[in-house]
């Protein structure tokens, strides 16, 4: 059987950054398996700018950001096997993959999962009505427009104000389509503020909050949608229904980590994140299997994906080099106002640990408190928090070792 010290599943931003970090940590025998024909992942279709400010100190487009890491991978001579789909990972770290030359099996010493995420489809939203052509997830439309060169439609309604939806509102407009509206079922947008300004307001595209698409019309191609306002329970408010003629509906209603392989391997999952349960080194419940990037938790910026991938890459390398940290572990628990905390467990190494979390709804000025039992390990104040922005709280070195029980992170709104 073919062998490789570390096999990285996915050649998007997470996989590339993890490979570079593992190499720089001292493991040279790496292999990236990627299902697309060239590495870079979803970034390749994100031709807008806004990438890299945090990580690379410059504002880049998606393909430019990807190109930076592809270059880094190339410079280190790390092989990327393209058009190669991993079909299985065993707990013994045997990776099975298929490509045009056949089925390959690779025995690894560590595996890094970096498969990314996918968009929530119409079916999962369960919108009633007909099933015509013209309903796309925003990312699919983005691929057709930016990579294939086809404008999917001319008169567009977008459901969901996630960043891809906002970006596509601008993109479709620039290519000559008319974007009639962006509807968001929540009373607030999940997208970045800058995208609301630069993609909607600058183009006079209305954003309707607490509004959703109730019905889809048209037999062959989409002919229009009925939108309606919703109450706090997301039920339609009678009398607010409105028909908007359109030939295209783009859905930007959330991203779901793509964890078929993870589940197949038998890795313990977190229902809240949709990704694996990991420790602060991004090691899953199966020793030697690491996860990072959007397959683990959906990030706000690709820069943070790269950061997380570096954690996983270094840790996987340490394991291969026999330097894996050991110690007692404690669980983390989301408390009041907190939807999830990652890592889900912490190895007590004596070092500082960063906890990442998302809140359950928007709050004003808030204080986060990290506690083990009654002991406060860390606290942080934020001027405002929203589910659209991931929070990071650092637990200082030494503090954790005293923690006897589970670590709870909770939020208190300061009035």
């Amino acid at each position, binding site marked *: 059987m073919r062998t490789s010290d570390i096999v990285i599943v996915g050649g998007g931003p997470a996989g590339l950054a993890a490979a570079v970090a593992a190499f720089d940590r001292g493991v040279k025998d790496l292999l990236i398996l990627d299902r697309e024909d060239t590495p870079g992942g979803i970034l390749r279709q994100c031709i807008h700018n806004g990438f890299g400010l945090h990580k690379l100190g410059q504002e880049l487009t998606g393909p430019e950001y990807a190109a930076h890491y592809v270059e880094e991978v190339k410079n280190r001579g790390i092989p990327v096997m393209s058009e190669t789909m991993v*079909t299985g990972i065993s707990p013994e770290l045997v990776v099975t993959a298929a490509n045009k030359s056949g*089925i390959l099996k690779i025995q690894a010493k560590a595996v890094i999962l970096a498969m990314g995420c996918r968009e929530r489809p119409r079916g999962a939203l369960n919108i009633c009505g007909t099933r015509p052509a013209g309903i796309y997830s925003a990312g699919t439309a983005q691929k057709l427009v930016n990579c294939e060169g086809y404008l999917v439609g*001319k008169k567009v309604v977008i459901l969901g104000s996630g960043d891809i939806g906002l970006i596509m509102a601008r993109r479709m407009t620039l290519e*000559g*389509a008319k974007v009639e509206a962006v509807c968001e079922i929540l009373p607030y947008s999940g997208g970045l503020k800058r995208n609301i300004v630069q993609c909607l307001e600058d183009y006079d595209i209305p954003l309707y909050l607490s509004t959703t698409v109730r019905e889809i019309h048209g037999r062959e191609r989409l002919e229009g949608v009925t939108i309606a306002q919703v109450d706090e329970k997301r039920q339609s408010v009678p009398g607010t229904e409105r028909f908007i003629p359109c030939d295209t509906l783009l859905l930007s209603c959330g991203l779901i980590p793509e964890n*078929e392989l993870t589940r197949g391997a038998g890795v313990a999952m977190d229902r809240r994140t949709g990704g694996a349960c990991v420790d602060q080194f991004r090691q899953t419940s199966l020793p030697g299997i690491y996860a990072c990037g959007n397959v683990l938790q959906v990030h706000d910026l690709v820069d943070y994906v790269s950061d997380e991938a570096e954690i996983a890459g270094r840790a996987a390398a340490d394991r291969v080099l026999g330097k894996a940290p050991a110690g007692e572990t404690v669980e983390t628990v989301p408390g009041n106002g907190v939807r999830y905390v990652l890592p889900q467990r912490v190895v007590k190494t004596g070092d500082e640990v960063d906890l990442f979390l998302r809140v359950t709804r928007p709050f004003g000025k808030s204080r986060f408190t990290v506690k083990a039992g009654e002991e406060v390990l860390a606290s942080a104040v934020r001027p405002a928090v929203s589910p659209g922005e991931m929070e990071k709280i650092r637990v200082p070195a030494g503090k954790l070792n005293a923690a006897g029980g589970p670590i709870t992170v909770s939020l208190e709104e300061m009035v």
Partner: protein
Amino acid sequence: MKYDVVIAGCGVVGAMTAREFSRYDLKVCVLEKENDVSMGASRANSGIIHGGYDPVPGTLKAEMNILGVPLLYEAAKDLSVPFKQNGSMVCAFGKEEEGAIRALYERGLANGVEGLRVLTGDEARELEPNLSKALTLALLVPTGGIISPYELTVAAMGNAMDNGADLKLNFEVAAVARTEEGFTVSSAAGETVTGRIFINAAGGFSDRVAEMAGDCDFAIIPRAGEYMILDKEAGDTVSRTIFQVPTKDGKGILVCPTVHGNLLTGPTALPVGDPESRETTPAGLEKVAFLAKKSVPGVDFSKVITSFSGVRSSVASGDFIIRASETVPGLIHLAAIDSPGLTSCVAIARRAVELAADCGIALTPKANWDGTRPDPDAFRRMTDEEKDACIKERPDYGHIICRCEGVSEGEIRDAIRRNPGARDVDGVKRRVRAGMGRCQGGFCAPYVMRLISEETGIPMVEVTKSGKGSRMITGGRIGEEADQ
């Protein structure tokens, strides 16, 4: 073009009838108004092989159902269509419905259904632990099964074509003229075919086609059934098909696994004016969820991956219409084929051949007829070693296009090349499930479009989701004038 047998409609009945006729030295043609086969009731139904306990003894439904079960299992095997004899269970909740269970048991015995058993609630829950605690009595039907209805239709028509039958897509019957030699059938677009025998298998439009052919004494009553399909993660909620006690509207809401491992719930039974209605409604889907939970409270509707609606065609009598016209020689009606039509399709097709023989068609068996069809899923059933060997022959089998269902480029190309070739995105989905998984085509749709375009020569901007009018791209090629 002159044919011996012309069949209007390529649902499961039309396709299976074409296959039965293809056994003989006859020229057979099927006319289908859509861009693909299996676009009416055969596209969206429960996919159940019914045991035969439900139809009233003495009806055509009872006769065809009982004859049909073993014939369908045999045809499915020959055609490599996925099916499973998973057994069914009809559930009663309380005293009133228990009487209905006993009546169904008696009716099943009268119809000749084998292996029927009445179970107590506890016995039923022992077999199906997720059944409701409120269930008090159940009828176990071991001969019941599940099958993929559209894959059966595709395979039946494909096999008929492999044996010489013709298929004309986008041929909407607009006129049927009786001639000395038989019939001349014209399409809305002006194309004509002639046949000695004309078989009306036009589903929701069979009353209109009957009228065109000059003998119509029935009116189709279309009834919509809404369904929800759940992710494979919920696929093992039940292993048998779980029915409730039938009502006048049909067999009620069922919960069952599909042959591909998803969980299916539905249908409602709402009369609709339009036999082509595909609309799901908030009330319909709510009803499905509510009633499904009555049998199986643990159905997790947060795992829904898609919902759909299909129309079945009934008539007032409630029975099938399978007969040669008494006034128009050579005209045969196969109409009002609602449930258990799928179960009965091979029996109905054989009856159609007998009726044609009665009309004077000579049945000379073909020496080289082959009723088998290679398994489109053969690749995914292979061991890794076999797959490796296969990819060496056909490298495109190693290129996975649909991530959710693991469908390769090779399988998609085959679906476009094999009879009856897929011509649109949904056609590929029905044949090899690319786009049928949890992302519902989010990743693979652009690749599938490209492969259709490459294989058929249809330009990218003309590729459709599901035939005429349903173009995937309406904004044109970027940099060129958008087409109107």
